[in-house]
């Protein structure tokens, strides 16, 4: 599903490479935590999987696409199979919750009929059907992240990338988001989640990939946040 082979990424002018000789295989249906300090290369790796950035050397295959060789006009279609959520939610402030979700379907040309069915369905899934007409400013942080999640999964992506999705949320709200992510994972979606949240990783007992200074220093099944745990 995701196959990263000896990837090195060096940014011009940076003293050391952001990623150095990273190899990683993620199978369909897996839930993987990416952990590591800031600057360890988690975000660079996520950007590579999204084809927002290209490796300096090495190869990346995602969903059967060779991301090094893919022509840029095919990139949009490739991205339709991926969902993404961020720490800062990235909702459009002037659109309601439902409009934010609908927007992501409108811009890939889905029909009005499809949107009218899919949006209420996904809002129900994230438990926010009664907030459909609220603006993001009227929602709590947790609710905003649920809307962002709804937007990421409304097109039924095969892979969901979550870049510190609980980074701005209190522990109780974070648990709610994690429960939602686990449900999404149970329905077959592969999830790669970068996080700093020790508690969440420890309770999850999932596969943990730890990055440090651009290298993978640990890759364990059913693990916790750090070796000291």
């Amino acid at each position, binding site marked *: 599903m995701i196959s990263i082979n000896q990837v090195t990424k060096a940014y011009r002018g940076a003293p050391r490479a952001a990623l150095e000789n990273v190899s990683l295989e993620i199978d369909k249906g897996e839930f993987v935590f990416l952990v590591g300090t800031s600057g360890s290369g988690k975000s660079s790796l996520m950007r590579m999987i999204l084809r927002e950035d290209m490796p300096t050397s090495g190869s990346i295959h995602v969903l059967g696409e060779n991301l090094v060789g893919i022509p840029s006009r095919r990139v949009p279609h490739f*991205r*339709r*199979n991926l969902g993404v959520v961020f720490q800062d939610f990235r909702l459009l402030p002037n659109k309601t919750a439902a409009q934010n979700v609908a927007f992501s379907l409108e811009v*890939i*040309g889905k*029909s009005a009929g499809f949107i009218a069915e899919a949006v209420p369905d996904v809002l129900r899934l994230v438990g926010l059907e009664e907030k459909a007409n609220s603006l993001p400013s009227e929602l709590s942080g947790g609710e905003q992240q649920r809307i962002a999640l709804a937007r990421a999964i409304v097109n039924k992506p095969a892979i969901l990338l979550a870049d510190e999705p609980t980074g701005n949320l209190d522990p109780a709200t974070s648990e709610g988001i994690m429960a939602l992510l686990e449900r999404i994972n149970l329905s077959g979606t592969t999830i790669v989640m970068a996080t700093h949240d020790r508690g969440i990783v420890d309770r999850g007992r999932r596969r943990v990939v730890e990055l440090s200074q651009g290298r993978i220093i640990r890759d364990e099944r059913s693990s916790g946040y750090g070796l000291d745990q």
Partner: protein
Amino acid sequence: MRLSFVFSEMGIAIRRNLSMIISVVLVTFISLTFVGTAGLLQQQIGSMKTYWYDKAQVAIYLCTKTSPKEICPQGEASKDVQSTISQRLEASTLSPYIDKYYFENHQQAFETFQTEFKDNSVAKYVTPAQLNETFWVNLKDPNQAPIIIESFNGLAGVEEVKDQRTYLDQIFSMLNIASLAALSIAGLMLFSAALLISTTIRLSAVMRRREIGIMRLVGASNFYIQLPFILEGVVAGVIGSLLSGAAIIGIVQFFVQGFLATQLPFTTFVGLTDALALLPGLVAVGAGLAAIAAATSIRRYLRV
């Protein structure tokens, strides 16, 4: 492809960016008005050329008593000179080129002069003897004037052979310079319009960078992302070009037809049909320029 969505996005962009859009409309409007004016001037030159060139004659001026001695040493041209010229004009070598010709004697020249200069004080001092007796020659093809000029120039008793088109050419070259000037101003202004459009579109893209970021993440095609911005530029360009079309029609209707044509009744002027014929071209230039400027600008901003 959902057009309603594209158009609503474009509408939002235009509302947010209204003052810049208005400036694009105005600059396009003014520059295309210059383009249209240059076009009208060219049409005017064309119609005047066909009208006046047909009427232009070659004049063979005969010597008078007052002609300069170095050209006319014999003084006043004799009757023999007149008959020599008539014979040559009738002869088979020249007659195929000539449509018609007539002779104007001192008295006729004086009468013409008195009517043409009736408000001018010079009319009081001129005597018939001072005015050249003249053969007025209309050619079948006015371009063949040099044949007549060569045949009669230097002939004893002929003071000068003059193609009237040389006077017209001076007027036409002035009009040509005016239309070239209008075109170069138009060129400069169109260039600044293109720069303004590309700045406006980039500004619009910056204002909507959240939307663009999300569109890229969820996999909207580049064309779909770019289309609202390109349309935003095109709408401004088309409005500007329609305004310039209205200005051109106004100029023709009220200035050319309403003022010039009544002041100079014997001249043909460009009319509404000429102005309307320019309109599609103006809209095409306005829309095309805006589309190219907007597309180039948004593409550079939105590299995948």
